[in-house]
C-alpha cells in the first residue's frame, strides 16, 4: 500500500510592511527629486566657493599690507615729528640750494670783461647789464679812430658775441676841432661769459 502523500503549502512570510508597486514608484520619484536638489545645491555651493576664493585672497593681501602700513606708521612715530620735519626741511633746502647754485649769473665777469677790453682813449659813463648777456655802454672816445679801436678791442674778446654801435656823435671843441665822440654801444655776451665759477 503506497504511503499517503500530504500536500505542503508554501507560505511567504515577511516582517516588513507590505509595499505596493505604486508606493515603490513614488519612493523612486522622491529619490530622483532629492538627487536633483542635491546636484543643484552642490553646483550652487561650488560657484559660491569659486566666487569667494579670489575675493578672500585679495582681502587677505589687503589685510597684510594694511598691517605693514600700520607697523611702519608706528615705526615712523618713533622719530619725533619735529625732528622728522627738520630733516625734511634740510633735505628740501639742500635740493633747492643745489638747483639755485647752478648757472648763477656773475655780473662781475662782465665788469672784468669791460675792464680788460677798455682802451686808454675811451672813458665809459654808464653801464646797463642784464642776466641775458645784454651789455649797454655809453661813453666818450677821444676820436672816431679811438672809437674804432675800442670796437676792435671788443670784437677780439671771445666772450663778446656781438658788438653794435647804436649812436656816435662828435662834440665840437675849440676852433672846430673834435673834443670827443659820445657813443652808445650794445654788446651781446656769450651765455658762458656770465656764468659764475668760484
Amino acid at each position, binding site marked *: 500500500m503506497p504511503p499517503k502523500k500530504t500536500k505542503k503549502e508554501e507560505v511567504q512570510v515577511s516582517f516588513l510592511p507590505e509595499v505596493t508597486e505604486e508606493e515603490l514608484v513614488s519612493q*523612486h*520619484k*522622491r529619490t*530622483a*527629486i532629492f538627487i*536633483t536638489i542635491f*546636484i*543643484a545645491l552642490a*553646483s*550652487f555651493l561650488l*560657484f*559660491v566657493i*569659486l*566666487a*569667494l576664493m*579670489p*575675493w578672500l585672497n*585679495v*582681502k587677505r*593681501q*589687503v589685510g597684510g*599690507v*594694511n598691517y*605693514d*602700513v600700520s607697523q*611702519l606708521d608706528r*615705526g*615712523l612715530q618713533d*622719530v619725533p615729528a619735529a*625732528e*622728522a620735519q627738520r*630733516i*625734511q*626741511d*634740510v*633735505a*628740501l*633746502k*639742500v*635740493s*633747492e*640750494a*643745489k638747483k*639755485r*647754485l647752478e648757472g*648763477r*649769473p*656773475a*655780473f*662781475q665777469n662782465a*665788469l672784468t670783461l669791460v675792464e680788460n677790453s677798455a682802451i686808454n682813449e675811451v672813458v665809459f*659813463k*654808464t*653801464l*646797463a*647789464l*642784464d*642776466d641775458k648777456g645784454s651789455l649797454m655802454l655809453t661813453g666818450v672816445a677821444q676820436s672816431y679812430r679811438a672809437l674804432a679801436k675800442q670796437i676792435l678791442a671788443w670784437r677780439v674778446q671771445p666772450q663778446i658775441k656781438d658788438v653794435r654801435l647804436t649812436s656816435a656823435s662828435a662834440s665840437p671843441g675849440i676852433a672846430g676841432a673834435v673834443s670827443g665822440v659820445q657813443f652808445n654801444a650794445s654788446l651781446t655776451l656769450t651765455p658762458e661769459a656770465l656764468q*659764475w665759477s*668760484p
Partner: protein
Amino acid sequence: MPNRFINFIQAHFVSFTVLVNLITILVVAFALILPMRASVAAQKVRLVSLRQDLEIKQQRARFDEQNKKGLALIAEADLQKLDALFAEGATSPSIFAAVEALAQGAHFTPTSIDIAQTPTGGGQGGGNLQIAVQLQGGSYFELKELIKAILLSAPLLDASSLTFAGENAGITLNLKAYALDRASAPASLIDFALFSDPRFNDLRVSSAPFEQGAVGRSNPFSPPSE
C-alpha cells in the same frame, strides 16, 4: 497636483537637472560672481594704493634714518647758512636786512627796496621774489664790491639787471630771491655734497640775526626817545 508635478519631473529628469544647473549658474553669475568681481577689482585697486603708500613710507623711513646720520656730521654754521639761503614769503625781513647790509657794506645808501612775489603755483610761500633796489652814491670799485657781495650772499640773490649811472651817481639793481615751495616737496635723501661745494662754502650770511629789543610804545607816532 504634487503627483502630476513629480510625474513631470520624473519624465524629464535629465532636462530638469540641466535646467536647474543652468538657472543656478545664471543666478550665481549675476547675483554673486559679478558683484564679487567688482569687489575684487576695488580691493585690488586699494591694494595697489596701499602698496604705493607703504613704499613711500618705507622710503621716507630709510631717508630719515640716513639723513639723520648725515646731518649729525654737518657743522651748525653750515646749517644756519643753509637756513639763511631762502626767503620766507614776500615780506621776508631777512631780504630787507640783507639788501641794506650789502649796500651799506659797499658804501651805497639804499633809497628804495621793492619786493614782489611771483608764485610758482605750489603755494605756501613758494616762488621767486623780484627785488627792485635803488642805491645812491658809490664808485665803480664799490659797485664791483657790491656785485661780488651780492653773489656771495646768503640769502641767495641773483642779479637780473644792473644800471650803473656813473661814478657816485647811483645804481639800479633788480635782484631775484627764492622762497621754498614746501607743498610739493617729496621726501628725499639729502645730498651732503653741497656742504663741500665751493659755491656753497663761499657764501656768507649777509646780515646778523635780529636782536629783538623792547616792544611796545605808548605813542608809536612820536620820535623814538633816547
